[in-house]
């Protein structure tokens, strides 16, 4: 087995797993969070609060369905507004999970083991939040099935040349494959929970979910084969999803959207924000449930390095956008570039540069990468920055395109904010439920890691 080594530092690398763990101790530690640990007051209060936020989301969507999208700040020419900004933001966050699970699996990166499970869960919840926005943005969500090809009595079919239809297929495929990937990974752990559960209802629930998994050598063989194939399939899929999302913009002729840099720069941005969100979740999680031995400082540092690298790609994207605007000499593109710097929404652009490009340069310093509070704050800043990026792309281009007579302004209403905050609450509430209902770290993979560590596999092949 070949394991990619860190750059030589002249001393032994820190282990990915706190030394001294056995098969039983990792199993115990992770499964006890689900099976035996009582619900603390902090969890209950947090859950109650988040439940309230989700009720606000219900209210915001209910009112939207009654009144229509006029309750939002969107208008003509800014038809997209918050709904699409939030959609692109959430779907971007949803990229880290499958990236960690699939790409890092193919690259044999051991450090994925402690973080892949909850990153995948995060992906699913983020995709759910993302999917909500285009759905309610249609204004008549009960008609959304029109986008699927089905033999209707009207004899009408979807327009397959439209990137919006590509989006439907890309996002629904991504959601489905991520769910299957997650479930396949969970299967042996569900069997562990079934065998360790003490109460009858836990035994019944985990018994049904684990499908009678018994860990036979033949089962593992097929299981590993399927898992490896899924990883291979999910890898191009991850890259395709945000590529297709960027096509929503890039195939249009609107200045600032019609560029070929969009697909790679969207994908890099997605990974950037996804890793930031993984850090935002991992730091409180390891603290709250005492998982510092599994999600070590070295894991956090590794994620910080990925953020730094993808952040630099994003910075390159911003630079090329400007370069191409001036290099092309297209006066609308030049005008748009100047609007970003001097237009009515210029403060958003400067905030974006500050959040996404300048602040993350601190990650060059090892001291910052290994400072947990600093990393947590950094992850929040990057998430904010990535949201601003989508705001800048959607709003600045739409407010001032070709004809001054068609220019407009955009400002969100309280319902826009309520819906956005509501999805943040929904996402966090689902994370709360997940952490207590399913093993947040892949137990069987941790046992494999214990096995490999006990044989000094690291760095040798």
């Amino acid at each position, binding site marked *: 087995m070949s394991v990619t080594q860190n750059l030589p530092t002249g001393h032994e690398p820190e282990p990915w797993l706190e030394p001294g763990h056995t098969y039983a101790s990792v199993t115990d530690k992770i499964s006890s969070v689900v099976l035996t640990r009582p619900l603390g007051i902090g969890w209950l209060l947090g859950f109650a609060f988040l439940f309230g936020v989700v009720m606000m989301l219900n209210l915001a969507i209910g009112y939207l369905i009654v009144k229509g999208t006029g309750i939002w700040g969107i208008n003509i020419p800014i038809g997209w507004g918050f709904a699409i900004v939030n959609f692109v933001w959430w779907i971007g966050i949803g990229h880290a999970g499958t990236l960690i699970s699939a790409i890092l699996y193919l690259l044999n990166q051991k450090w994925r083991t402690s973080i892949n499970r909850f990153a995948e869960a995060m992906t699913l919840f983020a995709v759910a939040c993302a999917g909500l926005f285009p759905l309610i943005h249609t204004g008549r969500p009960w008609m959304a099935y029109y986008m699927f090809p089905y033999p209707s009595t009207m004899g009408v079919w979807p*327009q397959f040349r439209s990137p919006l239809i590509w989006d439907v297929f890309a996002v629904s495929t991504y959601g489905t494959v991520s769910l299957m990937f997650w479930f396949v990974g969970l299967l042996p752990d569900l069997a562990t929970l079934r065998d360790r559960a003490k109460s009858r209802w836990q035994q019944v629930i985990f018994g049904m979910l684990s499908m009678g998994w018994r860990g036979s050598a*033949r089962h593992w063989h097929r299981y590993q084969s*399927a898992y490896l194939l899924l990883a291979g399939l999910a890898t191009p899929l991850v890259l395709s999803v945000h590529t297709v999302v960027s096509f929503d913009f890039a195939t249009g002729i609107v200045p600032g959207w019609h560029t070929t840099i969009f697909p790679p720069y969207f994908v890099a941005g997605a990974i950037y924000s996804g890793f930031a969100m993984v850090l935002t979740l991992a730091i409180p999680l390891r603290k709250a449930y005492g998982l510092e031995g599994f999600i070590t400082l070295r894991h956090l540092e590794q994620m910080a390095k990925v953020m730094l690298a993808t952040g630099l790609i994003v910075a390159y994207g911003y630079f090329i956008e400007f370069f191409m605007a001036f290099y092309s000499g297209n006066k609308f593109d030049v005008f748009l570039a100047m609007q970003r710097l001097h237009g009515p929404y210029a403060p958003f652009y400067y905030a974006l540069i500050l959040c996404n490009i300048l602040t993350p340069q601190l990650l060059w310093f090892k001291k910052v990468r290994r400072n947990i509070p600093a990393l947590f704050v950094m992850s929040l800043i990057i998430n904010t920055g990535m949201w601003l990026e989508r705001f800048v792309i959607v709003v600045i281009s739409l407010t001032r395109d070709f004809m001054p007579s068609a220019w407009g302004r955009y400002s969100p209403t309280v319902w826009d904010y309520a819906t956005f905050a509501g999805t943040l609450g929904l996402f966090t509430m689902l994370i709360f439920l997940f952490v207590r209902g399913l093993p947040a770290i892949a137990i069987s993979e941790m*046992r494999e890691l214990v096995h490999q560590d006990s044989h000094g596999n690291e760095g040798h092949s």
Partner: protein
Amino acid sequence: MSERPAQLFGVMGEFSTPEDLLAATKKTREAGYKHVEAYTPFPVEGLSEAVGFKWTAVPLLTLMGGVGGGLTGFGLQYWVAAIAYPLNIGGRPLNSWPAFIPVTFELTVLGASIFAVFGMLALNKLPQPYHPVFNVERFGQASTDKFFLCIEARDPKFELAETSRFLQSLHAQHVNEVKDEE
């Protein structure tokens, strides 16, 4: 409990490390046993070969799913855009295949993934809530930290006392009979 006497499914021995199990499995096969199965809390390299399992259809099924998904995706779009609902927009070709690539790609991945997952489950005969090995009390440890080897009664060489002694000679702890109570 059924009224019939419980049938014997096999004999099971327990090991503490994957290396012991792997060595024992190899010796069992060398001793001429054919119907052998090992149970482990995580995949152990070389173990499926040791129990005599060489080939799985999962990759082939995945390929079929992918090819089927891709053909369905492109076929559907071609049929919709060129036959069922042709729209003449400025005389552009109806079979505008470059525009059909994203959906074709997504359906290829979707078909392959669905076949990989459900193919794996079907070949493993899951869901299967009951299996005789679960009747062994200590088998619950198979999903935590113990490694089990089961020689099944349908093996022509199987003979209860002899096979149990053989497992003990491999230094298995807790050699148990596996009863099938169905």
